[in-house]
């Protein structure tokens, strides 16, 4: 039996998020103190050694990212927390911020010390306006207690744009512009917010930092899958008995998530597919359920861990209809800057609608495959590159469902 292991959610339900003393009583801010006593090179080496990889979806080694920013020469650097959490099916970052905002602040402060930044931003999605005061209360409490010296954090709101979860689009949004991604290179650790060295990390990534500093890189690296160690929060939705969240080691398999933690499919129905990582994730059929959820093992089956959203659908669902709705999502959320995404997401939605409404043919499926493939390596940013995945994977694993709808 796989077991939950709460690292980022260690204080969930145990503390009052609006009381900093509760956090302190749990050992909060001791890691920041410990970090500040280390020299920054050692601190970064420790984070790197833990092999903590980004929890927002890109999975880049956190310590390595910090080292780029630390090495850059600039009179101002920034730490940004990506709290945009736009991936449908995902609410893990909301859980962390709602219940333990200080773990985020502490993680950001450790990063700021490591890279030499004095200013931080939390980019909070516009759909979480109720968290603005929670975060500001926590920030002010930490300031008042003198715990976050030389590091100011400001909360900035998003305004309803999924693309702002992409780090450079997020940066553009904080700069007060349209949230359109920038081409890379240059990468944010060398040129980010207002062209200064910037670290953008996900809420869940930062929430791990205090524990890594407290218990050591080796401890962390030993949890779960060695190439992608630690835990991951999964939020379950769709046709699942336990429509809730779990934090499990990365060696857990998809089957364990769905059938053990998720409690299986309601109404005794059969499992059809699960989409992991959010709405840009692959649809995974029954045959591949014994895959561990770590980044690289998912990659090997043509899937992504992404945000850890787990969207289950049962045998009674029209998967083409679901994929059509998702195609509509991407058409709505494309920023419009690059041609293959702007036009490609619209065409994908149009073709899916055609097939879904019973007017499609094999030719349309072939075109969707070609279009999706081209988009996956030509688009300017991750949104356009990942958008075709739901369509491509449902075509691959559930071709019969498409054919059943042909004219």
């Amino acid at each position: 039996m796989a077991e939950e292991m709460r690292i980022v959610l260690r204080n969930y339900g145990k503390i009052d998020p609006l009381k900093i003393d509760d956090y302190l009583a749990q050992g909060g801010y001791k890691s920041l103190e410990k970090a500040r006593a280390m020299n920054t090179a050692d601190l970064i080496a420790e984070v790197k050694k833990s092999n903590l990889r980004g929890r927002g979806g890109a999975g880049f080694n956190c310590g390595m990212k910090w080292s780029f920013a630390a090495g850059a020469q600039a009179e101002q650097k920034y730490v940004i927390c990506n709290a945009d959490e736009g991936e449908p099916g995902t609410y893990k970052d909301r859980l962390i911020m709602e219940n333990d905002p200080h773990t985020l602040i502490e993680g950001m402060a450790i990063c700021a010390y490591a890279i030499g930044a004095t200013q931080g931003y939390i980019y909070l999605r516009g759909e979480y306006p109720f968290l603005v005061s929670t975060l500001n209360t926590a920030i002010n409490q930490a300031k008042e207690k003198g715990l976050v010296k030389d590091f100011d954090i400001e909360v900035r709101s998003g305004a309803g744009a999924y693309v702002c979860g992409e780090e450079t689009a997020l940066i553009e949004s904080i700069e007060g512009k349209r949230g359109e991604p920038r081409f890379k290179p240059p990468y944010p650790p060398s040129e980010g917010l207002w062209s200064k060295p910037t670290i953008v990390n996900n809420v869940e990534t930062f929430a791990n930092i205090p524990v890594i500093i407290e218990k050591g890189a080796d401890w962390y690296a030993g949890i779960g899958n060695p190439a992608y160690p630690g835990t991951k929060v999964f939020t379950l939705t769709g046709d699942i008995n336990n429509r809730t969240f779990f934090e499990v080691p990365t060696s857990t398999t998809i089957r364990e998530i769905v059938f053990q933690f998720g409690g299986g499919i309601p109404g005794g129905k059969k499992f059809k597919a699960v989409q992991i990582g959010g709405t840009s994730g692959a649809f995974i059929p029954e045959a591949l359920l014994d895959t561990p959820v770590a980044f690289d093992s998912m990659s090997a089956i043509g899937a992504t861990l992404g945000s850890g959203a787990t969207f289950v659908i049962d045998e009674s669902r029209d998967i083409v209809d679901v994929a059509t709705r998702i195609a509509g999502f991407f058409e709505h959320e494309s920023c419009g800057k690059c041609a293959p995404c702007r036009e490609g997401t619209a065409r994908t939605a149009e073709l899916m609608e055609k097939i879904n409404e019973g007017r499609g043919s094999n030719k349309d499926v072939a075109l969707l495959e070609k279009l999706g493939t081209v988009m996956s390596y030509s688009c300017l940013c991750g949104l356009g590159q990942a958008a075709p995945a739901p369509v491509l994977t449902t075509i691959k694993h559930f071709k019969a469902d498409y054919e059943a709808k042909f004219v």
Partner: protein
Amino acid sequence: MVNLTIDGIKVSVPEGSTILQAASEVGIKIPTLCFHPDQSIKANCRVCVCEVEGNRLLQAACAMPVFEGMVVKTRTPKVLEARKTILELILSNHPQDCLNCIRNGNCELQDLAQEYCIRENPFEYKVRGFAKDFSTPALFRDQDKCILCRRCIEACSVVQSVNALGLEGRGYNSMVVPTLGKALIDSPCVMCGQCIHACPVGAIGEREQIDEFLAAVANPDKVVITQIAPAVRVAIAEEIGMMTGEMPMGTFVQGLRQIGFDYVLHTNFSADLTILEEGNELLKRLKEGGTLPMFTSCSPGWINFCETFYPDLLDNLSTCKSPQQMFGALAKTYWAEKMGIDPSKIYSVSIMPCVAKKFEAARPEMNDSGYQDVDLVLTTREIGRLFRMSGLDFSKLPASDFDSWMGKYTGAAVIFGASGGVMEAALRTVYEVVTGKTLEDVNFAATRGITGIKEAAVDLDGTVVKVAIANGLANARKLMEQVRAGESPYHFIEIMACPGGCIGGGGQPITKANVKRVERIEAIYAEDEGLPLRKSHDNPEVKTLYEEFLHEPLGHKSHELLHTHYHPKNKKFL
């Protein structure tokens, strides 16, 4: 230097170069659409994508910097399929009316469709359905043709600082629109037309008036006359497959007669005239403590800009009309009299490198002759179309002279076409008027070139006159801010709305790079150098005009016909 391999060919380029730059060093032309050599890198069309070994994603050649040992492949099957698909996507959303389009034959998207052999499009043809915007008399916008490359926005906001264009919406619904989504005429647009040059396709163009011209020619009651701006001759050659500057003036005049003009005269005549009027106006302000610095007023895009953004500084503008409008007023008074032609029958056409001139000619106050002074403005591009329509072989046409009374000009008039030319022409005359001496070397090198802001201090026998010259409106804005703050050190400022001056005007052959503007500038100064008369006050026809008609610069007749006033535009949203 960085060493890399492109399509198996080794190349060495400086650090910081892009794949696109490196490829052009070894003769590999990677196709582009949103890329513009004089603008920031956009990387949004993705047409220039290439394979870079070690990377699953294709990289945009225009943006990707090279690294040591990089291995690039620009035409693998994966790349070709990607480019073709991207073009198909853009084309399936693009009006299929090449045959009727103003950029037929000169369109970057059309070129790519040809190069990539797009015969059939797998995507359903679907146009967005915007209404075309014909709200200004100078240019039109056709949003359905927009491919969202954003080059026009950069031209309007960065190069011109007018900011009349921006984006609206997101994703498939995004579009380039005038301010607040209004009609162009209600935006700050000054009609300079630089957006036309920036646009790779036919989404923006001039208000074509060829039909009006042909109707006038066909009308037996009309005497159709023309004036040609100095910037036109050097560029018209480009419209008909010749090299910049290669069209001899005499052949050009013959060509104009062939397409239907009854009389061919020259704006250069009135440019010389402008110098007499404006030079004296400057001297008057200097002597009598008039409003300084004085700004030139021959660029209607600049006048629109001043009326829109700096209405508090309208008194600084010279009251002289532009050469086009001075000509217009005189053609239906002085010239009509000299020629014994009924002015009501004269249809006065000007050929301009400019689209804002279409607006200028239609200004209600430009009727001092008793009629609309200039009836029609045709751009260099429209004349090019008329020449091509007429099937003329310019290598064989015999030369022809200009007609009398308003057709002679000096080199000082010719240089009006380039940034700094009006200033240099003015200095050539003002020097001699103030010092009473002959100017031996007429060349004022400090005024020349494409540099955005130039300045010079000219010693007129003890009186030092400080001058500045700006081309491109963002540069003009810098000087204007200085004037507004009361900190301008200059006495006289020449401003041309278009980068490089009129040779880069909105009506010129589609100008894809600043190097072309530089070429045209060189042709202008070469023309000036080859002329026997190079000072405006030496123009014999201008002398006759004063002797017989105007009597003196800034005199009563001049004020009646050759001077004007300006009005704040009061645009609500800037």
